[in-house]
């Protein structure tokens, strides 16, 4: 009796400590970013990050817009490709694949999820970029970034969608089948609404990963600071910019890089706030 009470108290405190530490780390990162970016945030009006003529930090021109658009275009492009592919392959595994195929396919997707991003970047640099170059130079481009990002977030979407679909209770499936619904009718009418929240959560997770991805994108995107006019134009993303310039940035330039870090974090926060909104299904 005494023993179990003791264990309970101990476990409670360990769990509390874990929760507090995680929250604290998050908070400290935010505070750190704010402190580091304060030199410019206090000095110049924030609108200058969007209205300055260009990104020439050494001359005091701090327009982050081209890089923000690069980040968003690459992420949105990758999501547009990866969402249908990921959902389709998860549906295939659960509802259509022959039994012998399921396990190997699933292992393959899990393996794909575990490949380090630099390997994707390496592959993109040596294979994808030259290939695109043949059609439309220079090769290192928004398109290359989108394709590499798609490969990276595809397994995330597939695996999260897979587990969301798996979690749909058998009762719904049997009920739908007993009403003579076709397989697609069942998927569209019953399974999607039931698995909605989990699928959206997976997409948001993937979007966060796409926005923050640095190395793989840096290796294939060309890193020219500009608003891309088309898929074949090189871009530079915010994350890549930080990695590229942090080594030599000083004073205001350094602080602006922290501002772009802050911007990335705000983007991800907005995403998770959105996830909370969309994830709540009105009938569950």
């Amino acid at each position, binding site marked *: 009796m005494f023993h179990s009470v003791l264990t309970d108290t101990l476990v409670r405190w360990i769990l509390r400590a874990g929760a507090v530490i995680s929250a604290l780390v998050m908070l400290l990162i935010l505070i750190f970013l704010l402190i580091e970016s304060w030199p410019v945030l206090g000095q110049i009006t924030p609108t200058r990050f969007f209205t300055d003529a260009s990104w020439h930090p050494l001359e005091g021109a701090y327009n982050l817009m081209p890089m923000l658009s690069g980040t968003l275009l690459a992420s949105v492009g990758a999501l547009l490709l990866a969402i249908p592919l990921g959902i389709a392959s998860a549906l295939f595994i659960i509802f259509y694949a022959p039994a012998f195929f399921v396990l190997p396919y699933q292992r393959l997707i899990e393996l794909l999820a575990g490949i380090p991003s630099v390997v994707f970047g390496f592959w993109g640099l040596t294979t994808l970029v030259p290939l695109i170059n043949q059609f439309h130079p220079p090769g290192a481009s928004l398109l290359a970034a989108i394709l590499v990002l798609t490969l990276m977030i595809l397994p995330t979407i597939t695996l999260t969608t897979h587990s969301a679909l798996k979690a749909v209770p058998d009762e*719904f499936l049997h009920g*739908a089948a*007993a009403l*003579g*619904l076709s397989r697609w009718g069942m998927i569209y*009418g019953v399974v999607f609404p039931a698995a909605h929240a989990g699928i959206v959560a997976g997409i948001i997770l993937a979007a966060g990963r796409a926005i923050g991805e640095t190395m793989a994108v840096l290796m294939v995107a060309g890193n020219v600071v500009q608003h891309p006019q088309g898929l074949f134009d090189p871009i530079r993303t915010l994350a890549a910019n930080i990695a590229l310039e942090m080594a030599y940035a000083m004073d205001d330039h350094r602080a602006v890089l922290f501002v772009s870090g802050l911007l990335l974090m705000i983007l991800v926060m907005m995403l998770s706030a959105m996830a909370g909104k969309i994830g709540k299904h009105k009938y569950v």
Partner: protein
Amino acid sequence: MNPDQGKAVQTDCECDDAYTLGPLQMGPPCCDPEPVIQVEDLSLQYSGKTALQKVTLDIYRGCITALIGPSGCGKTSFLSAINRLTDLIPACQVDGRIRVDGRDIYDSACNVQALRRQIGMVFQKPAPFPLSIRRNITLPLREHGITQRLTVESITEQVLRDVGLWNEVCDRMDTAALSLSGGQQQRLCIARALALSPQILLMDEPCSALDPIASGVVEDLISRLSGHYTIVIVTHNLAQARRIANYAAFFWVKERAGQLVEFGHCRDIFESPTHELTAAYVNGIRG
């Protein structure tokens, strides 16, 4: 149905007690039962383990047939073989023959979707879809090609009235079906099945997850459906089987496989069973 009425009919009519629940809309007169489902030598195996062995049974049109027996004797398996829900269970093998309206449903030419439209099913656990109340009924309708708005609306209202749910939900048709109480959810599931105007309703312990009051409401509903639909109901509640069923089939487990022991008029099964196991079970001595 109230018990007095049943007795009165039993004494008045010599033939049998098959149809005591009001006017019939289909089916022959009461002394000439017409089989609508004919089961011959049905055996069912789950990954090589026999769950049901050599069951031969006729289900009569417009009647309520109760399947009774202890847990694990294959009643539910029997039920899901009739609408081929067994197809969904991997490693489930069905042998023998089931004919519905004379057509072999395990024939490769059988359209399973059409079959399941003809045979509705209600499960033990009420499981409305995570959609609005309205969409729970319109989804299967639309899937079967009934898309005209007025028709859909009138069917929806009709079936909800049939199950006595209309007055309770008509002002909140677009709220979540899962927000209904258990008994309401089960009646919605019955309405959902009725919307496709099936001939046959399979019910797998439809009242067992409900409290006594909700259970009574659903039971009354089933009684009212008798004659309009052919109903096969699995129940562990012997009193309920006795109250609502015209025919009863008693299953028992022999050598780990479910078998049909006795089939006959409900009254005969309960009052003058021919098999000693049946007698022991319905009198509460075994099972």
